[in-house]
């Protein structure tokens, strides 16, 4: 009679005939729509943001128009070329190109290393894989184990820089209620900056690194009740990280566009009350 001790594990042979036919995919649905939309939107945003960043003009609506609106691409404006009223009081005179480049490095790094955007661009641009159960576009694959993709692990540091920028953009939104020469008020531009700041906070607070740092790294929640409460609060937000990622990305571009159009005199920022 055999016992459990007699049972030997079956050795696994790697390779062998794989299941099913050797085709790229058996999917007949329109699996390519989602990666195509991702590529379209991200490419459009990058093209617009690059163009806007190198304009180095029309990013601030100041006292001459009775407003205090600054584009999120240029805030904080920290270089010697910043227009009067747009900088916080000190500047880096050694920086000679557009001030937006100095700022955009941080949100770019935050979004580039974001766990959601990784999914989006690995699928859309890198085709690794283009969609579920559709063959990888590359013959070999080493994941994020080597340089440069090992740098994805810096996400939490970009998150911290993102928080600093969120605070600054929130101050910008509050300052937008101040209308030089007209007292306090609310204009469409004020609302645009407020919604932009709110969406960026939602995107940052729903971040996976934020969720981990606030409480996800704890094993025994009963001994860390405050961190547990924060983790419990952030977890539902985290479930909508993808939506916040897209909404905040599109709206930050629209915010720059709105400020740019007002600053260039295409139309006046209407005061609501």
């Amino acid at each position, binding site marked *: 009679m055999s016992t459990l001790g007699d049972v030997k594990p079956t050795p*696994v042979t790697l390779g062998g005939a794989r*299941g*099913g036919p050797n085709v790229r995919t058996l999917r007949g649905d329109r699996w390519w729509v989602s990666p195509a939309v991702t590529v379209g939107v991200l490419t459009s945003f990058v093209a617009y943001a690059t163009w806007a960043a190198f304009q180095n003009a029309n990013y601030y609506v100041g006292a001459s128009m009775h407003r205090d609106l600054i584009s999120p691409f240029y805030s904080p404006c920290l270089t010697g070329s910043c227009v009067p009223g747009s900088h916080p009081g000190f500047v880096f005179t050694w920086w000679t190109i557009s001030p937006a480049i100095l700022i955009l490095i941080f949100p770019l790094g935050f979004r580039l290393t974001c766990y959601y955007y990784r*999914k989006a661009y690995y699928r859309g641009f890198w085709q690794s*894989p283009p969609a579920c159960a559709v063959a*990888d576009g590359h013959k070999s694959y080493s994941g994020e184990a080597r340089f440069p993709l090992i740098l994805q692990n810096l996400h*939490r540091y970009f998150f911290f820089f993102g928080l600093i920028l969120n605070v600054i953009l929130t101050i910008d939104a509050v300052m937008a209620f101040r209308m030089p020469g007209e007292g306090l008020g609310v204009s469409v531009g004020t609302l645009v900056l407020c919604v932009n700041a709110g969406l960026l906070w939602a995107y940052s607070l729903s971040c996976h*690194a934020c969720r*981990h740092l606030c409480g996800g790294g704890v*094993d025994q929640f009963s001994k860390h009740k405050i961190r547990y409460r924060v983790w419990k609060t952030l977890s539902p937000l985290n479930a909508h990280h993808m939506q916040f990622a897209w909404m905040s990305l599109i709206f930050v571009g629209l915010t720059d566009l709105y400020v740019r159009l007002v600053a260039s005199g295409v139309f006046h920022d209407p005061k609501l009350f």
Partner: protein
Amino acid sequence: MSEVTMRIWRGDPTGGDFENYTLPANEGEVVLDMVHRIQAGPAPDLACRWNCKAGKCGSCSAEINGMPRLMCMTRMDELPADQPVTVAPMRTFPVIRDLVTDVSFNFEVAKRIPSFAPRPREADGTYRMAQMDVDRGQEFRKCIECFLCQDVCHVIRDHEENKAHYAGPRFLMRAMELESHPLDTRDRRELLRKELGLAMCNITKCCTEVCPEHIKITDNGIIPLKERVVDAAYDPIAWLGRKILRRSRPPVLETETAASPA
């Protein structure tokens, strides 16, 4: 009465091809019902693995119209009625016959995950855990081991060579279950980083998309595990904090051969 054509892959390790079976369509049927009707009629030798027919045993995994799904949980009326329904075996694993694949790779990987190692019991001989401590792990315990997540994961689906050094979503999730267990004392992070291929996962979330138990494998399992590995290996501030506060667990660097008892 309308008819439906089932396009089923028939073959063995030497090769195979699709065969069409046209059957009358009955209301309320799932794909597994169709396979059973084919077995009862035109192809009694059609091989397929199944057991509970209730989405709880994880046996009838296959690729239906190209997507990894359970045959017993895929209703015929949710598939396009105007084209044949394609049923193929799981792509990632070696085929045995027809729709049956050899999933023993997964059982070997399971042996490599260091088992649960609880801290000493309380003075009264018990372990105490608050509900808030165990809630997080409950999600991972819903896993029925259908291995659809392993099947869809492109790291091993499209790159056979990675099977030697990549655990796959099911077992990364298992590692997260153990790592976040309130009683567990082991530190598997270096093992996950160096031996079990955590960095091979590029978060494309297909495992979550196909999970029949709707477990958030990526958001709640793999990404938190990646963040824990960042704590251990890539975050100098966290490293400094551990040094100053002298908080660390002895890391496990080698895999085990014994299956986990937890």
